């Protein structure tokens, strides 16, 4: 037990609200600590703290008024909490007025079969429109996909032909037979390129790709 702790339990110590063990520890500390003892004595010497109260007749008058006011306020609070509209009541027609009153339909809400049919018709038309639009979009997407695959195939074919030409570039001369070992006067060996024979159908200067280094 230290001085700080004693200061914090001083009131329950004097009110006998502390557990026995802690109360004994405080008492023991006070025997050895004059400063704490002086503080406890000062608090113990405080005059009684009593509440000022009204005289009985005044109390009676005041609290009589209190009860009346409270009753009114509770009644007012209950009325505020009650729903302003009776949701269980049957619907009532709203009277229309003015020159067009006779032309306007009654405001009484009724579920008419013709309105239901019209409503369902509109909903079906909207649904059909959405479905049609969806089908057209899908068809368009398929068409685009087919076109893309065709472009890819063509690009692949062009690249294949270009690679073949570059491979022959360093050893062939335009217009020469492909196989120099063939016998003089013999017909040149044929090389099938796109249905043509023998001679490379490309001009050398037409290739612009990177040169192949062996």
């Amino acid at each position: 037990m230290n001085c700080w702790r004693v200061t914090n339990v001083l009131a329950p110590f004097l009110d006998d609200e502390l557990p026995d063990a802690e109360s004994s520890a405080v008492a023991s500390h006070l025997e050895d600590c004059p400063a704490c003892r002086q503080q406890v004595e000062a608090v113990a010497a405080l005059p009684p703290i009593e509440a000022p109260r009204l005289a009985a007749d005044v109390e009676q008058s005041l609290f009589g008024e209190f009860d009346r006011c409270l009753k009114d306020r509770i009644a007012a609070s209950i009325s505020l909490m009650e729903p302003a509209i009776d949701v269980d009541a049957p619907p009532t027609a709203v009277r229309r007025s003015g020159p067009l009153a006779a032309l306007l339909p009654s405001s009484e809400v009724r579920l008419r079969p013709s309105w239901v049919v019209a409503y369902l018709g509109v909903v079906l038309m909207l649904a059909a429109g959405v479905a049609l639009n969806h089908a057209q979009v899908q068809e368009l997407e398929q068409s685009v996909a087919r076109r893309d695959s065709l472009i890819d195939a063509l690009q692949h074919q062009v690249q294949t032909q270009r690679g073949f030409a570059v491979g022959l570039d360093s050893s062939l001369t335009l217009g020469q037979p492909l196989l120099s070992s063939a016998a003089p006067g013999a017909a040149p060996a044929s090389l099938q390129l796109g249905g043509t024979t023998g001679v490379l159908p490309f001009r050398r200067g037409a290739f612009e790709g990177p040169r192949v280094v062996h």
Partner: protein
Amino acid sequence: MGHPTLKLVPETSPKNLTEADIKAAARNDRDRAFDLVVRKFRDRIYYHALYITKDSEEAFDVAQDTFVRAYHESRLFDEGFRIKAWLFRVCTNRCYNIVRDKHRRGGILDRLGKGNDALRQHHKAIDDVLAREQSEGMAAAMAQLSEDHRSILILRYYQDLSYQEIADTLGVKLGTVMSRLSRAKVRLAGVLEPEQNA
């Protein structure tokens, strides 16, 4: 209606009913049980508000609000619900809101459109007597304490709440009640000491 006078009188609360008795009554008739709550706690709640606000009209209003809220509190008669601590907590919070608000407003709009004339005069007379009481002795010393210290002294000595009830009312731990009450009394002794030596 005579002039009110403040004097120290013994606790006159009839109020031998326990909260358990009231809750038992609520099982048969909730309105009657609420009436018992009002009769048991009305005086103490009003006085509690009066000690904090130092304004009879405000205290009257706060006490009424507290009981209106209690009337609409669905848990009021539930098993384990602490009615007294709840009432004091609602009242205390409302009072300090009003006190702070009054500081902000400077008291200019305090009296607009409240109560009837006779009741207002009654409140004014109570305020005058209370102001005289507060200007000397223990009440004057308590007025110099902080809000926390004054509040806990009022709950303990004016309202005679137990330590546990104070903890429930203020929403703090029991140890906090002990230390705060101890320091409040040390501070109060410090305030009163120069007066006693003078």
